[in-house]
């Protein structure tokens, strides 16, 4: 399992570097801009002049001049979608990508169990996501001493935990769908579409009560974002992690039972029925 974990991290190192540098530069820029933005005269009036629907979409826009509101609106509000691109793409092709390229056939002919292969790769992906977010956290925390944000390292860290949990959930969902759908591409598109739709619904639910009753059944409803700076909702965090664990368990179960293809994209199957047919 460790060999696969190490190999997965090595394969993801390019993406980890790229995303890490991107997030670090963005974090540094936003910290350095904080003092200037909040000191703009009439900034709050300018925000208040925005259409109410737009203000509602992004949550409490009037709090933008506070460190908590600033980080929430300029970072955690849409980081689920931004880093979600990495998470969904990497996870959907974690196993199926190699299968489509015909690489998995030879890998699995070596003395490694399906469980060890699955866990090695999934944990590698989890570690890669954690490293990217760690860089993101450092990019806020380290330069914040020279700004007027006045938040501690733990306050900066807290909102990264639900971000990690919700990204893990979408990543694991992409992995599960890759076990059920014909190709990694389709699994990635479906999960990515669900993530974006959930993000839009969450924004719209601030103006529409009917939508609010729907979004309660979606993952982003339980994502705190910048609100976790002051108080972390441990129940929501545990819930997101628990759902991720269940999704991972289902993906593992499917992987145990599937035939490994020699290459190329597959077709639609009836996985749940065929799984009971194991010889």
């Amino acid at each position, binding site marked *: 399992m460790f*060999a*696969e974990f*190490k*190999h997965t991290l090595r*394969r993801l190192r390019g993406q980890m570097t790229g995303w890490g540098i991107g997030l670090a530069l963005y974090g540094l820029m936003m910290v350095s801009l904080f003092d200037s933005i909040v000191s703009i005269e009439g900034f709050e009036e300018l925000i208040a002049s925005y259409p109410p629907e737009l203000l509602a979409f992004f949550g409490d826009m009037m709090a933008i001049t506070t460190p908590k509101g600033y980080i929430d609106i300029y970072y955690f509000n849409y980081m689920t979608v931004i880093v979600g691109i990495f998470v969904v793409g990497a996870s959907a092709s974690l196993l199926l990508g190699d299968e489509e*390229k*015909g*690489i998995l*056939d*030879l*890998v*699995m*002919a*070596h*003395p*490694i*169990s*399906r469980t060890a292969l699955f866990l090695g790769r999934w944990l590698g992906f989890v570690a890669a996501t954690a490293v990217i977010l760690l860089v993101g956290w450092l990019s806020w925390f380290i330069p914040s001493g020279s700004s007027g944000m006045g938040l501690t390292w733990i306050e900066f860290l807290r909102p990264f935990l639900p971000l990690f949990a919700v990204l893990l959930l979408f990543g694991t969902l992409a992995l599960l769908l890759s076990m059920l759908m014909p190709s990694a591409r389709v699994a990635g598109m479906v999960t990515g579409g669900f993530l974006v739709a959930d993000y839009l619904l969450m924004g719209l639910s601030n103006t529409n009560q009917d939508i609010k009753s729907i979004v309660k059944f979606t993952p982003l409803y339980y994502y705190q974002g910048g609100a976790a700076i002051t108080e972390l909702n441990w129940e929501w965090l545990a819930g997101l992690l628990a759902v991720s664990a269940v999704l991972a368990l289902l993906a593992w179960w499917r992987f145990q*039972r599937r*035939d*490994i293809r*020699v*290459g190329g994209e597959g*077709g639609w199957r009836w996985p749940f029925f065929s799984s009971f*047919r*194991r*010889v």
Partner: protein
Amino acid sequence: MLALWRVIREADPALTLVGEWQSPARRELGAVREVTMTESIALVAQKLTKSYGQVRALRGVDLKVRRGEIFGFLGPNGAGKTTTIRCLLDLIRPDGGTVRVLGIDPQADPVAVRARVGYLPGELNLESNLKVEGALRYFNDLRGNNTDWSFVRQLAERLELDLTMPIRNLSKGNKQKIGVVQALMPHPELLLLDEPTAGLDPLMQQEVYRLLREAQADGATVFFSSHIISEVEALAERVAIIREGVIVEEAEPSQLVSMAMRHLWVRFKKVVDPTPLAAVKGITLLSQSKDTGVHLQVEGEMDGLIKALAAFPVRDFEIERPSLEEIFLAYYKAGAKEEN
């Protein structure tokens, strides 16, 4: 019936009726016999079936490969060669039948099977962003990092494989060499090779044959599929032909060749009447040239023809070796006749 059973039992005390009580001593004798059988058989497949949707890839494959032999697995594209090999490694699950590899059920303990098997897939794909050595070290990691690296270097040298090259820059033949090295490097007890020399030049093919013979001399069993009859003849001690998911023949390569039709050109010292030759069983006179030559078609053993030719003043004699297609054709015709 009981009397018959007693006679059989006297000949083989380990035999029992289903459900019959066995004394501990007899059970032990049976177990010893089973162990002996397992020790002498490298792989066995019985009534193996596998379908992909509506396509029945395997329709009851029965196969037995002895330990230490080089076994060729022949069949046209889509006959079920690759599917059979992949069932042996639990890469795909058969719909029915049983498989034992080195005495182990691959579905029950795939890791134990794979730890003792070296595999070369028919369509070899490798991570293109790795270097040759990086890919081999990754495979070594998966095997618990217990490969003798000097042996890997020796294999690479013999196959003229540059370990420092990025895989993306390699030709198909050079990638195939990586496949051969990774299969051989753990000194496996059993080699499952799906077209091992595909893409290699003739010199490298010969080197691979030498490597496989050396592996056999070290005690390994080699099971390989091929489309090349000369390769099968050069390497294999026994051969199985698979046709539409069923093994239609198990034989020695020379027997296979003798079953197929061959073409024979004979030049005589003077003009002769070839009628006695055409009268030999399995011989058809295809043409007679104006001078002293005849073109014959031979089906089955050559013995009768050779004896008949002894009575003729032969100047020259040329046999065209049958192609694999012609061998398949012979079996397909035989199979079709049986079905009719």
